């Protein structure tokens, strides 16, 4: 029973903080709410018996990505005053459209209760299993992601560095 309540709590936190990311006026608050959201998602991972993933998630997202976001927001000195806003009408339209998308998505998701799940390895999320899969089955994508990082690095440096006259 306990797990259920934990799930409710975490789900509430993640949805609430995600919504706050969208509606907060101050960009810094947005970042903080997003970090909160990420922590709650990490909680879900733990709940799902994917502890290693949860750890990586916290390190990569909260530790690296969000810090980068915060850094940029501070660098550009964005705050509530400089924050642009869409007109109410557009916001309304955005809400309606997303609402429609949600309804239609949930509509198609229904009926999946009957989906039969094969009984697999309950410890799939443990480091040992993950490592096996990653370095046996998914070795090539792993290597390709290194090229991806190289691209990101070269790209970021190329855009970031000052033009040599």
């Amino acid at each position: 029973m306990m797990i259920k309540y934990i799930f409710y709590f975490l789900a509430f936190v993640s949805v609430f903080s995600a919504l706050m990311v969208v509606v907060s006026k101050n960009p810094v608050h947005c970042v903080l709410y997003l970090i909160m959201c990420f922590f709650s998602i990490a909680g879900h991972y733990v709940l799902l018996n994917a502890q290693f993933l949860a750890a990586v998630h916290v390190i990569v997202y909260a530790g690296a990505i969000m810090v980068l976001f915060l850094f940029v927001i501070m660098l550009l000195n964005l705050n509530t005053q400089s924050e642009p806003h869409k007109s109410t009408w557009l916001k309304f339209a955005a809400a309606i459209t997303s609402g429609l998308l949600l309804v239609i998505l949930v509509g198609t998701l229904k009926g999946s209760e009957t989906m039969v799940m094969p009984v697999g390895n309950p410890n799939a999320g443990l480091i040992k299993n993950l490592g096996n899969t990653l370095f046996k089955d998914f070795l090539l994508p792993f290597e390709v992601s290194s090229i991806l990082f190289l691209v990101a690095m070269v790209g970021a440096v190329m855009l970031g560095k000052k033009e040599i006259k």
Partner: protein
Amino acid sequence: MIKLVALVPLFPIIGFLLLGLFGKKWSKSLASIVGSGAIFASFVVAVGIFIELLGADAAHKTATFSLFEWIDAGKFSVAISFLIDPLSSLFILIITGIGFLIHLYSAGYMHDDEGHNKFFSYLNLFIFFMLLLVLGSNYVMMFVGWEGVGLCSYLLIGFWFKNTNYNNAAKKAFVMNRIGDLGFLLGIVLIFITFGSVDYATVFEQATHFTSGETVITTITILLFIGAMGKSAQLPLFTWLPDAMAGPTPVSALIHAATMVTAGIYMIARSNILFTLAPVTLEIVAITGLATALFAATIGLAQNDIKKVLAYSTVSQLGLMFLALGVGAYTSGVFHVMTHAFFKALLFLGAGSVIHAMSGEQDIRFMGGLKKHLPITFLTFLIGTMAIAGVPPFAGFFSKDEILAHVFEHNKIMWLLGILTSMMTAFYMFRLFFLVFSGQFRGTKEQAHHLHESPKSMTIPLIVLAVLSVLGGFLGLPETFHAKHLLEGFLEPVFEASEVRMLPNHLTHLTEWALMGVAVITMIIVVLVARSKYVKNNEVPVPESTTLKPAHKLVYNKYFVDEFYNAIFVKPINWLSQKFHSIFELQFIDGIVNGMGSLVVWTGRNLRYAQTGNVGFYIFAMVLSVVLILLVNYLR
């Protein structure tokens, strides 16, 4: 010789490549020698093929030569292969023969033009595509040639591209041809779906198993005819042809009179079995042809530009050919293509010679009395005029008479309208002739000073064509003369399958003589009227703008007959002619064609505002589309 058929289109393309690649550095004479020489070489081969076919027995009159498989996608396969039979050999003979003469002529005509060498390369390219069109052994190759000649015509109309009018003419020609091409393309697709092949041999063989009047055949033929309407300038897609006269005169002679515009007739003659199986289409072809013939002739009555008169007359004559095809007289149609190629090329080249002498002036109101200055042009032009007007025994007489005889068989009212058309033809042609060559010179002093006969390279083609215009008709003497219809015998294998489905010739010799008599007598009356009007009375059409002072004071002899004639015939006809030209042609047809173009451009102009530049909007559109897609899936 037949085995060498691949050489026929090969020479012009080599000529084109040489001229295109190196032409710029060559002298004009070298370029004209290479250009004309390539066509002459083709002509020699074509003559060889023709002679060999003449000697061959019926079983060996058709031969196909495959070069290689070109397209092969599943059931759909197209080979690059040439079909030699009496019909295509006749056409290549006309194309290379007249093509060669016109190349020769262009050497003189374009001599002072800076684009001389480029002009020859375009002409060679045109001949190449035209040969491809008639030699191909399947509809796809015909289509390739069809598009190719369209492209060349477009390039050549706009050859003097400094003038925006020329540009617009080129554009109009292009759009109208596109409408036709769409019909042709859809026709080919439908042929492939119906017969599973685009090869003539297969298609025609299979077509014989269909019964007459089946819907699919009717649809195919109507689509093909739409293609022919565009290329051969039939109602309502004819307005580009008069405008196309903006190009250099040899181009008008070669492309817009002798060869390209007859491609539509070739296509129908080639597919004759399909059309024979679709009587409804044949009726449409006949009516369209007749309407075009009549309509264009009416407009021709009041034109003052020497090339425009010839252009409308071409449209009218093409209509006559379609009329012939429509009543099932395929041989007569092809016969008229041939004679028309002779005399219309002659007339255009003659007109070119006149324009050349007049330093570019094209308005016949400022000509007159050129008989003395241009004796050779005068004589040859006279022969051409008599040929087109149907004076026996010139070429036009026999072919036109043959068509009218078949039309008489088919429908008497059509025949009457046909006679009316040829009366009008005789009238405007002699009006043109008299206004240009007889009477006093009405141009400026300066022009009068410059008047000169054209150089030899221009007059020799004129003489050759004049001889052909005189003798060409004897290839197809009517039965009444108890001579053999040479052309009919020659073309027999091509139209065999159709002829067995057609009614045999019912006309008695007496009727035929009578028909000929009516044609000749009405023609003579018309010529006499024209003569009294333009030679005796020295009448000159009224200038369009009053500020232009006529070179000569107009003298009117006040005969009662003239007054009567003016009130009853001339004024209404002139009025009708003007109205047809200005309202129907310029506003209605051009309006629709231009309207379609404008609609697309207008939509484009407004549609591009959807591209607001706002990322927010783009993303909105994306999400909405996703919602829609999922919704469609949900409701499925």
